[in-house]
């Protein structure tokens, strides 16, 4: 189905459309604009705090586990791929394949969140708190022997948990939304090649969340 045909779905508006997109899609794009500003505030803060910090920043890989998180990143990217495949499936008129790929996306998204939660637990156990390094913990010893810089660990913990936490919250909301649509619409066959706007709109949100993660992973974990 053509792009124009997708956009012609839904109740026809009696006027030439402002933009060539149905209301829900335009609304999602507008909402994503606000989300961009939100994450810009958080990421901008991180940049300012890190590069204005009173000391060295912890080197990559010492506090955070890059291998596990790299796998997680891969998982999230795969979930974006499966989202696209779900969209393509219903566009081509195959609702059963839509269900398969949507479920894959939901599972990958849920696994991402699960692995993040596991990571958080591990980090807290090792001693990274939002307020910094816990006394007597494994990371506190690394601070004591100079592997980790004492002056900036407070900022490290604050920025890490806030940025990844809100990203994880957004992924969770995405998983829940997708699950809701899956159960109430996809499984009941309510998406048709003539109207699958919900799939496209939740897909837009999902890709946005993926994009934010790629940026976060790069600047928080790798740099």
């Amino acid at each position: 189905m053509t792009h124009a045909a997708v956009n012609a779905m839904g109740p026809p508006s009696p006027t030439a459309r402002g933009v060539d997109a149905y209301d829900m899609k335009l609304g999602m794009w507008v909402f994503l604009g606000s989300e961009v500003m939100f994450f810009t505030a958080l990421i901008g803060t991180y940049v300012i705090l890190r590069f204005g910090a009173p000391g060295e920043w912890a080197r990559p890989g010492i506090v955070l586990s890059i291998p596990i998180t790299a796998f997680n990143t891969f998982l999230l990217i795969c979930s974006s791929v499966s989202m696209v495949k779900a969209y393509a499936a219903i566009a081509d008129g195959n609702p059963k394949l839509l269900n398969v790929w949507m479920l894959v996306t939901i599972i990958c998204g849920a696994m991402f969140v699960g692995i993040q939660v596991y990571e958080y637990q591990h980090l807290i156990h090792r001693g990274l708190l939002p307020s910094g390094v816990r006394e007597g913990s494994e990371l506190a010893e690394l601070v004591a022997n100079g592997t980790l810089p004492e002056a900036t660990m407070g900022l490290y913990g604050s920025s890490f948990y806030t940025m990844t936490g809100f990203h994880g919250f957004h992924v969770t909301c995405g998983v829940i939304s997708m699950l809701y649509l899956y159960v109430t619409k996809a499984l009941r066959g309510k998406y048709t090649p003539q109207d699958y706007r919900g799939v496209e709109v939740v897909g837009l949100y999902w890709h946005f969340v993926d994009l934010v993660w790629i940026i976060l992973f790069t600047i928080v974990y790798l740099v």
Partner: protein
Amino acid sequence: MLASLFVPEGASRAGWTEYAPLSASFEYSGSNVGQMLWSVSIIVLGLSSILGSTNYITTVINNRAPGMTWFRMPLSVWSLFITAILGLLAIPVLAGAAIMLLFDQLLHTNFFNVAAGGQPLLWQHLFWFFGHPEVYILILPAMGMVSDMIANGSRKPVFGYHSMVFAIIGIGFLGWIVWGHHMFMSGMNPTLGTSFMVSTMVIAVPSAIKTFNWMGTMWRGNIRFHVPMLNAVAFVAMFVIGGLSGIFMAATPVDMHIHDTYFIVAHLHYVLFGGSLFALFGAITYWYPKMFGRMMSERWGKIHFWLTFVFYNLVFFPMHNLGMGGSMRRIYDPTMYDFLKPMQPLNTFISICAFILFAVQAIFALKFIISLFRGPKAPLNPWEDNGLEWTLPNPAPHGNWERTPSVYRGPYEFSSPLVEEDYLPQTRKLPTDPEPAQHVPAASH
């Protein structure tokens, strides 16, 4: 936020600007749960505003009636549209800041904690990056509604409609690059201060364009001094005064002396009260018949307007003098400073007038409620205006129109030579009007 008034230690006590570290640290502010509740309420309220903005923007872009092109929209709608964009993009930054503040308060993160490398100045930047677009959010809808009311009261099209639209867009855009003028005293590099000074002065230009256009609208109009018109004209005059005092503080060297004095308080009240609030009084009176089916009392409306106008000026104009004399903001007892003692009678005078001003507002409040039951029943179009809403019953039913209306012309066709009446509604079809492009009218849902 209301609940925070009743928790132990009471509500937030760091000013509406909630500067860190006062707001972030219990040991500085003395208010623990109250401060956290402030942060939470901002996040929740912010989210609702963002969603509302999404709705407005999508509706204005995609759901206009056939024939309602961008440049046939009333200025009230244009202003609400631009305001929604400002809110959409500015409020998330405030939300991010409030979240960081909440985490500093609750989880002992260190965003604004100097001891751990945080930066209180970060709060200022984040807050004011939101805070300046916020004040344009406060004034733009007022400007739009004032345009509608003045055109109606003058029985003339808005002078320079296109430039009014571009001025709204210009104010909306420029509002993003001036936030530093709230921080001139924060120790910033003077060069940065200069750049904010320049951008702040530039933003006066589109506002001035609008002022001249309002005057041009009224010029040689067949003026009807109904209550909304009185309030709208007061808006123009008072907003000009507020804007002029704003130029003083836009100049960084001057602001060094008047920052955090009553001169600023005078400025902000002239634009917010003299501006937005008068526009609000006018707009409520104007659209009240459409909302509730009855007219507010014209006589009491005029009494309220004149009393408010007089006492409002008596309260806030002397604050310019107070501020120039050095009277600081947010101090408990000015008489403890010798250099402020001579101005204390002026302070007392302002306070007395303020109590009277507040009491006068009871007129408006009572009028509002009483007119719901005892006001004269309103005709469909009591102000003889051109907008789409005036074709609806009072109040409008769900979905507004059963059949989607068509729009044939702009919103300000007053005193048109084509018809006998001095107004020509947007939806009225004349024999010479072409039909706008339509599809099958959609059922609203």
